[in-house]
């Protein structure tokens, strides 16, 4: 698939690297015992350490170290048993220490490779450079006062994992697929909630362009992009801008840029104009971080099943088709929902997992996802409980209702919140499987449409659907389609 950008003077190749900041799931901060909970009153989740009071010292949170290792394992990266915390020195209102504790030369996680799937079904390998642990800064608010910026340190010191890719992506689509893959991995691993609205995951997007086959061009870094859609917009607008500049004979400045939602474009960050010189050096308040291979092995053994493994299992053990399996594992919540519903259905229906897997997967990816999409809800906000869903599918499995009636019942469940059994009883939707009753009705219909019977028998096969429709119409759709089929064939063809 060609991803070249057509400029006025020829083709350009866009080169993209991402630095993803993922907030570590932990109770307390990386170097202090203050809480990490989102949404607290300003400056309440702040300790003297977080506020960089004189004489305060950092002490590392072991769970953050474990989370970084888990994430490294999930991405299949090298785990470094010895890493070093460095200070990255710069001044900013929401950086109380005047430096960020990060990892520079020796990160906790080293290189790895991820394979992402693209829309056309092809795959692409994207290299991971490293993952390091670092502190988040506080939050500056520039719009609360005409001539002051307000600073909230609640986030100050929260643990982040910075996941740095190699400059291996060549299109917005690839970048999007890579980001989604990382997001899925951290969520499966339970190391980051991936919640982009709350800033739990954001990306610095590095973009450069070059003529195909030439040296890398000068890149720009657009900071803190907090949605996948925006990230793709950044890449597209930055590609266009850089190509325009270069084609007009200009040069690209290596600079930090800011994404503006209103225009969908990026602009130079005014406050960061000066060239940065972070003066990294090992933090003398912390010794090198060392742990054993045993710890890594232990964490590896406890790792939850990740998306790729889950997908393979769904296909092999549950006989679900690859497409459905892919859709289900894309989000951990969907996979979890599916597996919970599957076991509830197995229990309710008494059938084997492999017998009901396809039906449940079809229902989740089709009926449920369709309804949720219409309602604008997430899987965890589903208005239908697992128990009701399992009941609905079981009614179908045991022949109480047909697939068509099941859709009608589901519609009703969404509106009324009632259980499917109640709805079926109240509305008399129980499927008619009584052979005698259906046979009588068929006889009636055939008698009333003798001309059509004639035509059908004369070779007009298409009329078969008409007879089925008539039967279903007369039974309000409740006739068991298999029974109808069997009897109709007997009567018409026999």
């Amino acid at each position, binding site marked *: 698939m060609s991803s070249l950008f057509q400029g006025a003077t020829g083709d350009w190749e866009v080169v993209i690297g991402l630095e993803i900041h993922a907030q570590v799931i932990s109770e307390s901060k990386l170097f202090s015992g203050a809480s990490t909970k989102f949404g607290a009153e*300003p400056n309440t989740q702040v300790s*003297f350490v977080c506020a960089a009071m004189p004489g305060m010292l950092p002490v590392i949170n072991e769970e953050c*170290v474990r989370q970084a290792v888990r994430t490294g394992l999930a991405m299949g990266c090298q785990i470094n048993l010895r890493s070093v915390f460095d200070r990255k020195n710069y001044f900013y209102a929401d950086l109380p220490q005047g430096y960020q504790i990060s990892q520079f030369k020796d990160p906790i996680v080293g290189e790895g490779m991820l394979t992402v799937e693209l829309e056309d079904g092809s795959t692409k390998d994207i290299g991971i450079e490293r993952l390091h642990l670092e502190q988040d800064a506080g939050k500056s608010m520039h719009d609360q006062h005409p001539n002051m910026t307000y600073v909230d340190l609640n986030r100050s010191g929260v643990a982040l994992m910075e996941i740095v890719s190699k400059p291996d992506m060549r299109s917005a689509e690839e970048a999007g697929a890579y980001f989604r893959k990382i997001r899925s991995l951290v969520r499966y691993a339970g190391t980051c909630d991936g919640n982009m609205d709350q800033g739990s995951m954001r990306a610095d997007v590095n973009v450069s362009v070059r003529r195909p086959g030439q040296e890398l061009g000068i890149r720009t870094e657009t900071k803190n992009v907090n949605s996948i859609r925006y990230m793709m917009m950044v890449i597209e607008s930055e590609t266009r801008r850089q190509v325009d500049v270069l084609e007009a004979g200009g040069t690209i400045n290596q600079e930090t840029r800011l994404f503006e939602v209103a225009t969908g474009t990026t602009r130079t960050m005014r406050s960061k104009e000066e060239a940065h010189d972070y003066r990294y050096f090992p933090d003398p308040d912390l010794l090198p971080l060392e742990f054993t291979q045993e710890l890594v092995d232990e964490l590896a053994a406890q790792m939850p099943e990740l998306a790729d493994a889950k997908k393979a299992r769904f296909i092999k053990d549950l006989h679900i088709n690859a497409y459905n399996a892919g859709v289900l594992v894309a989000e951990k919540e969907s996979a979890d929902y599916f597996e919970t519903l599957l076991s509830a259905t197995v229990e309710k229906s008494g059938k084997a997992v492999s017998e009901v897997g396809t039906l449940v997967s079809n229902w989740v990816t089709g009926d449920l996802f369709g309804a949720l999409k219409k309602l604008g809800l997430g899987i965890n906000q589903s208005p239908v409980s697992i128990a009701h869903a399992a009941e609905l599918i079981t009614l179908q499995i045991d022949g109480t209702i047909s697939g068509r009636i099941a859709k009608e019942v589901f519609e009703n469940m969404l509106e009324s919140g009632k259980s499917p059994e109640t709805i079926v009883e109240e509305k008399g939707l129980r499927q008619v499987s009584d052979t005698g009753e259906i046979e009588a009705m068929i006889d009636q219909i055939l008698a009333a449409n003798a001309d059509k019977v004639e035509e059908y028998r004369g070779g007009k096969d298409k009329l078969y659907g008409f007879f089925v429709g008539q039967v279903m119409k007369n039974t309000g759709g409740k006739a068991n389609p298999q029974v109808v089929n069997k009897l109709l064939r007997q009567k018409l063809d026999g």
Partner: protein
Amino acid sequence: MSVDKNTVAKIANLARIAVSEDELEATAGELNNILDWVEQLSQVNTDGVEPMTSVVAAALPMREDKVTDGNYRDQILKNAPAVEQGFFAVPKVIE
């Protein structure tokens, strides 16, 4: 490696210390005196010598992941030169 006025201005900016134009020369002189003196370290052969990371041979201690601190905003803000509605307040930043 001699420090000139421009370098002093650059360092002073990185360190966020205002140094007036007429102080630059004198500051450069002072810094050069010290830098020339520390220059003697280049005489030491340090091939294959690891830089010191810590004078004490010990492993980095780790703490349990528990909330044990925070929730005392008044104490956090008490010494601040400017506070507005529970926030630290600084001159407006234009990004």
